[in-house]
């Protein structure tokens, strides 16, 4: 899947936040995303590269991947299951 062309249902801006806030906000925001839709998360915490993929693939959701943006942050994509 081409991550760059994904049109997410919503974007969570967690840039500058550190563990555990990016994961906590991801979990909360995902609750409001309809099944089948995609949540995009922007993060800068290096720990999120472990935490978000690990969490995003659980509970029937699908972690689609992440890309490092040229602007110095990482974009993560989770499809709500």
């Amino acid at each position: 899947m081409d991550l760059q062309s994904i049109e997410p249902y919503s974007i969570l801006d967690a840039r500058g936040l550190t563990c555990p806030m990016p994961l906590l906000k991801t979990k909360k925001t995902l609750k409001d995303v309809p099944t089948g839709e995609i949540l995009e998360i922007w993060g800068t915490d290096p720990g999120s590269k472990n935490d978000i993929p690990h969490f995003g693939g659980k509970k029937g959701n699908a972690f689609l991947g992440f890309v490092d943006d040229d602007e110095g942050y990482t974009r993560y994509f989770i499809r709500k299951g």
Partner: protein
Amino acid sequence: MASTSFWSSLKEEARRNYIAVFEQEWPTWLAGIFLAIVALLIFLWQGPWGVAAGYRNLGDWIVYGAGAGGDRPFSPWLHPITLTNTGLVVGALASAMLSRQFKIHRAPPLEYAKSLIGGVFMGAGAVLAAGCNVGGFYTAAAMFDMGGLAMMAGLIAGAWIGLRYLLWEMEHLQQKGVEQRPSSDVWVKIQPYLGGTVLILVIAAFYGFSWVDKTDLGGLLFFGLLIGLIMHRSRFCFVRAFRCPFMTGDAEMVKVVAMSLMIYGMGTAVIKWAWIQEPSMGVTHNFWIGSLFGGVIFGIGMLLAGGCASSTLWRIGEGQTKMVVTLLAFAITNSALASLLKNQDLYDKMGQGLFIPDKLTWYVTVPSFLLFFVFWAFVAIWNEKSEKFVVF
């Protein structure tokens, strides 16, 4: 045709190992084993591993430097735990640079405020418990001091309270993300050379300490460096063991910390039972009032700050500016509150160390210790499936 000379083979192997060590993240279970081994080496080398006393030393100097009174504090370059802590920060810095990950991270204003308050809570909790998540819990438990287990109960309760606050904050306080400046290509390229230089300088410092007959102190700096490397490469965070069962239900860090403690505890049992070190060594924690309530306060603080005593240090090493605020708040609070309690003769009322083998004998203590941590891990695994303790 590929070259098969000795040097090309060596170069290829070095490149492969460099990628394995500095570009791929280490599994946390491996870090848990390494951490227990290094903690045991520190115990054999000098005494039980701690972190908070190094914060206290820093705080004492800040308070003394500000003219707030007191005697001249212990020299930081001769203070064993300040040296281990310095090694930890520098080891994480070297590790971050060698893996091209060092970067100055800025945070939103609310995060700095939480770092400050979290640092104050952790500084206060570490005074009451006579140690932080390392000295008061991890090491205290492995030394068979009942205070370690009381602090563990406090940390679990404090993590639950801290997490409830974070959930409230998400509902009521909005904060926007902060843009970060991307690293330049040149910076990414030169980082491994700078990281290598830092490593060489620490090793040189070890020889410097030996040169002046302070090999024991140089060794502590070096052990701290190893801990910084281990923690940064695996992103080892004690907080996750207390927070994740309530937050996502994830049991991974509980299993890792439990396993690490079983190794550390068994090693300690061998060393103490054989009288290689004095059996009562490290049994200095404030069981039970100080350890329990100190653990609760410390647990709240580590959730607010987003790091405990050890992870604050390695996160500073990778460039997290908000953790510097935590370090200073922790250090000053710890120093000031310790002086206050001692001046008011309140410190002794917090409790005293209780060496479990004195009550239960070694024969009962060792299997009970193992079973206790196996039980903790199994409860966490069950919770991961049932989400019984997950708060939202």
